[in-house]
């Protein structure tokens, strides 16, 4: 590749980088305190539906070890 082509590729690359950074710089950001509050709220709202957090009663556990049946 001639050095002219190489430098125009580098310029194209640099242009893309700047465009991407512009896009990312212009987004709206909320405060971490608000973001954290929302995440905490979601967790507490859904905690009661979280079997791994709440524990699973044996009668409702599809993975509970099945006791061997004896036929009398």
């Amino acid at each position: 590749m001639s050095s002219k082509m190489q430098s125009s590729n580098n310029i194209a690359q640099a242009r893309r980088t700047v465009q991407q950074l512009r896009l990312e710089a212009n987004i709206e950001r909320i405060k971490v305190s608000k973001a954290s509050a929302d995440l905490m709220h979601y967790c507490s709202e859904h905690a009661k539906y979280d079997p791994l957090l709440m524990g699973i009663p044996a009668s409702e556990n599809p993975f509970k070890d099945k006791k061997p049946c004896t036929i009398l």
Partner: protein
Amino acid sequence: MKKEAEALKTQIEAARKAACDTDMASAASGVAPAPRVQLKTRRTLKGHLAKIYAMHWSTDNKLMVSASQDGKLLIWDSHSGNKVNAVPLKSSWVMTCAYAPSGNLVASGGLDNMCTVYNLKTPVIKTVKELDAHTGYLSCARFLSDTEILTSSGDTTCALWDLETGKQKTVFLNHVGDCMCLALSPDMNSFVSGACDSLAKLWDIRDGQCKQTFQGHTSDINAISFYPSGNAIITGSDDCTCKMYDLRADQEVIGYQDAALNSGVTSLALSVSGRLVFAGYDDFNCNIWDSLKGEKVGVLSGHDNRVSCTGVPVDGMCVCTGSWDSFLKIWN
């Protein structure tokens, strides 16, 4: 233009700092601690003959697919512990597998650079498509539906494929290192990718644009997941830490690390409320973190080699770990 790039980077950092009025751990200091989580192994699934590299739950909460370098995909009924199907792979160097939400299809891929899609519902399991366009290994695949699949590759790109034509609809370009993992947002409009450039990126599926970039890790990001609310992501890295990034604050809000831990994170999965993070490590364990407080609340020990994959089904009733020891374990 270099100056402009630097100026923009400084601008982004300043904007993030301005939004950073606290951190999650401080904000969550008033939250009751998560209970000590002690899970038991309920099933040990034996059948693979070599290292397991990936697993994925079906949306029916019962079936799951696992991929091993023994050259097979195995479909398991997790309740009975029985194997339901075995799919022989053309290439045994598999790195990922995925179950379609419909349950009709599974996919695999790896060092063959291809994503192969199989139909489980035909009388004999058939290969329905070989998606061939990546120039690097396939690290992860996730179905959006029976007609679309997302892939991430060692060629540094991610791609959205049309399964009817077998062609790429959109290519996501921006990472400068191998893409190692991807996760779909709950609303299916976006996805995040983690790469060896130590960055996580958020992409819009439809317009192909990278919307946000998250820094902080100091090594390859091997695992990534969306928080169930869709507003945050969790990443796991070779730098031995996991991090939570909030999408709307555009920054890291908490890290999960321990000075005693010096093994890389290979995989992660969240419980349904998002409170518990199950992270698999190179040191053969899966550590359980309280996502809000950043404290370790439990550990799953039982594998005799690296934990390579973890997954929680949609109903959250258990967590599955897969390992290089060739076994999968189901815990709850």
